[in-house]
């Protein structure tokens, strides 16, 4: 297929605009969610005896902070609202899609770039788990150091790939199509009213999505068999996701609850640098020291291994 520069540029521009629109939509929805959570709601009753007095006494924001463990289902709005759930699913889907791109690309440079996207999306996922420090570390160490190292090595040993990236735009387009089909199928499964909508359309969409993936991304499987198998696997995954969640909390296995109500309350500064520093330099200080030795050994080993033969003999 002769790839003209014009359509490819248009495809990439449309993709960027779509991504911006998606992120804007997500942010707006998240803001609305937070706004809603801040307003006093009639459903949430603080006390039964003196509702008026309690409402006057406790400002809503204080209630959100102080009494967050008592008011069920009204914990931090950043992690339990519908919009943030959508954000989580977007991040997770990007993670999985781009990790698939990582292992299917011929060009190692493309693989490294999609691995970068995986790392950044994973940093976003860490924010959902009350781990802001780990998110920052993920960006700095992985997206910064490791990817740069990979790209540096790829550049220094040369790109002797047989296929150029000329049809990149078309492939991205197909990938976005597959992504949208998967999302549409999941939406059908969740919000479908009739049996036909819920199951038949779901299956159809997922089948189409994986057909596109398998056919155009040249995933090295026997194509139709692979498509059927992967679609079936995805069905199982969606079933797992939509069934009553089983949690392993402090009380053992808990059915029908979610992480934010069952899990132990993480406290105010959970996951920031201070708490983790206390953990690393307090209880885990031996591991930290052992790690410093390991890093030293790794530095020496890397230098020794890449030293050229001439220097080694002299």
């Amino acid at each position, binding site marked *: 297929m002769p790839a003209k520069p014009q359509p490819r540029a248009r495809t990439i521009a449309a993709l960027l605009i779509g991504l911006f629109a998606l992120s804007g939509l997500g942010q707006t929805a998240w803001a609305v969610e937070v706004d809603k959570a801040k307003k006093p709601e009639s459903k949430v009753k603080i006390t039964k005896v003196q509702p008026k007095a309690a409402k006057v006494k406790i400002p809503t924001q204080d209630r959100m902070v102080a009494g967050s463990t008592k008011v069920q289902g009204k914990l931090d709005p950043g992690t339990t609202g519908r919009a943030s759930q959508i954000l989580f699913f977007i991040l997770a889907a990007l993670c999985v899609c781009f990790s698939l791109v990582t292992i299917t690309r011929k060009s*190692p440079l493309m693989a490294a770039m999609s*691995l970068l996207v995986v790392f950044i999306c994973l940093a976003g*996922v860490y924010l959902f788990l009350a781990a802001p420090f*780990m998110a920052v570390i993920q960006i700095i160490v992985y997206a910064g150091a490791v990817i740069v190292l990979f790209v540096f*090595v790829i550049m220094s040993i040369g790109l002797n790939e047989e296929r150029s990236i000329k049809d990149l735009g078309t492939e991205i387009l197909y990938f976005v199509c597959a992504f949208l089909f998967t999302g549409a199928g999941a939406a059908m499964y969740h919000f479908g009213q009739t049996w036909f909508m819920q199951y038949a359309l779901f299956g159809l969409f997922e089948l189409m999505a994986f057909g596109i993936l398998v056919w155009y991304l040249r995933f090295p499987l026997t194509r139709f068999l692979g498509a059927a198998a992967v679609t079936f696997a995805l069905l199982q995954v969606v079933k797992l*996701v939509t069934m009553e969640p089983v949690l392993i909390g402090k009380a053992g296995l808990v059915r029908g609850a*979610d*992480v934010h109500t069952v899990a132990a309350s993480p406290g105010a500064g959970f996951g920031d640098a201070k708490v983790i520093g206390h*953990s690393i330099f307090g*209880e885990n200080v031996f591991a930290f020291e052992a790690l410093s030795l390991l890093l030293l050994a790794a530095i020496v080993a890397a230098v020794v291994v890449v030293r050229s033969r001439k220097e080694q003999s002299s």
Partner: protein
Amino acid sequence: MISSVHFLLLSALLFMIGAAGVLLRRNILVVLMSIELMLNGANLALITFARIQANPHGQALAFLVVAIAAAEAAVGLAIVVAIFRSRRTTNVDDLDLMKN
């Protein structure tokens, strides 16, 4: 409602994709990247369990894993460069020096 199951599923998926990459790909650079993917999947599971238990040690452990992953990438890439210098290849199937 997002539950810990979702996070664990994501981590399992990342791990499986990474393992598939290690097994299927022949380019040694992509194999190393797949190992990074697997480490990230394990890290996500660690942080998820740290959140469930409200225990900061899990995150500290994930931090140590990140450091180890960085060291592994440095040594692995050094080995790749050394192999490429002596044998002019990045294909793992060509590296059969110990076979015969």
